[in-house]
């Protein structure tokens, strides 16, 4: 049992055109920047990307969109300090958007991972985001039926990982990452520290290894928000 990949390029090598890809992170925290940029180097197209946001600046998901790789975004908040990449394509009708309330997005992903094909939530009842969805009443209150979300791949940033795929995260960079690990057919993780099995206390594991397929160590990962503030942009793996 050893889920290590030699490098980011090898780790993401199975992601092909048309794949549905969950990408961890919320705003500038928890985004697997190195895996995303390795994916841009490979450049599969016509992807559906699931993330809370829709990219920021000229790196990460925004750089994927600029590279013409993304056909559809499923997200709750496609705005950021510099949302140009998504906004331009969206207003030009070149990228599709499925807008999902944030808690419903999280729960749909968790449901995908937990084998729950549908659930009811009060969220969005009576709003345009519930249009066309089944409504049911429980105990006299109306709820909206929502479906699970699954993906072909998840690309994830964690803090420590062991060779079995057990993971911990760094502070609020946890966010959607543990859920996406559960909901993808294949989960690919970059970790800052890769340790042997037994190197993480079983009580402190946040994502059990059963939800992880491949790991690659990226010892000093880029932090998305710090990159944005430094005005960095993706140019084929080099950050000027």
């Amino acid at each position, binding site marked *: 049992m050893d889920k290590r990949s030699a490098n980011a390029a090898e780790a993401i090598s199975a992601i092909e055109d048309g794949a549905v890809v969950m990408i961890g992170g919320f705003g500038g925290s928890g985004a697997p920047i190195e895996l995303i940029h390795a994916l841009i180097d490979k450049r599969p197209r016509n992807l559906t990307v699931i993330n809370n946001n829709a990219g920021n600046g000229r790196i990460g998901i925004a750089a994927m969109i600029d590279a013409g790789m993304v056909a559809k975004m499923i997200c709750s908040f496609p705005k950021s300090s510099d949302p140009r990449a998504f906004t331009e394509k969206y207003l030009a009708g070149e990228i599709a958007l499925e807008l999902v*309330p*944030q*808690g419903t997005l999280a*729960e749909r992903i968790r449901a995908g991972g937990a084998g729950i094909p549908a659930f009811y*939530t009060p969220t969005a009842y*009576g709003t345009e*985001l519930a249009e066309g969805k089944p409504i049911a009443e429980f105990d006299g209150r109306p709820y909206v039926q929502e479906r699970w979300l699954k993906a072909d791949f998840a690309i994830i940033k964690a803090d420590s990982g062991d060779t079995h795929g057990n993971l911990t995260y760094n*502070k609020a960079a946890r*966010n959607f990452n543990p*859920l996406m690990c559960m909901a993808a057919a294949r989960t690919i993780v970059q970790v800052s520290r890769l340790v042997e099995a037994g190197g993480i206390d079983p009580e402190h594991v946040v994502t059990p290894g059963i939800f992880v397929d491949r790991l690659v160590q990226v010892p000093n990962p880029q932090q998305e928000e710090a990159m944005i503030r430094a005005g960095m942009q993706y140019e084929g793996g080099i950050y000027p």
Partner: protein
Amino acid sequence: MSSALPTMTEDAKLSSAQMAWRAAQDIRDGAYVNLGIGFPEMVARYQPPGRQAIFHTENGILDFGDAPEPGKEDWDLINAGKKAVTLKPGAAFFHHADSFAMVRGGHLDVAILGALQVSEHGDLANWRVGSKGVPAVGGAMDLVHGAKQVCVITEHVTKTGEPKLVEKCTFPLTGVACITRIYTSFAVIDITAGRFVLREKLPGMSMEQLQAQTGAKLHIEEPVGDLVTPAL
């Protein structure tokens, strides 16, 4: 409604900080609170001495504190507004599904949100002005369900003087029948049984003046208090 009444002077309304102060007075010690992104975040600054609310942020932290000193930011330690925060003793991290279980499951005592419009039935519109541009909803539609009390903090009227408290929202809805209290720049208003019930108003403002700037009828159930705050 009528626009023949005298216009309020610029001074004759609460500042954003004063609205935030007023909202903060109603938060009890130990309450679990979510403050909407932007202006509602100011509420945290004005907790009365001796009270300590615990703040929740959608992206997976309970009991975060103020912003760090400039230059000391950890960008993995942010709130839902993507601002750098700090931790208080007793903080905890968790993933998004657990975070929204707290919201949807009724575990928050209070959520305080901004508003474009609030209707007398408690409907809230706060995520989108029309159908143009890029829509973005975030956690607003979740936050209006589940918290034991969902409040709005808002200017009483728009910059062009249009009422924000209305009979029926014209902007896209965030949630239906979800708001129970509104803190505005003129008044504190509860929503009970599909009616705006006035609890406090600026002492210098007459009922007629207040009603004229409100898009639905204000009801009075008990003596109306004076809305008085420190200079802030």
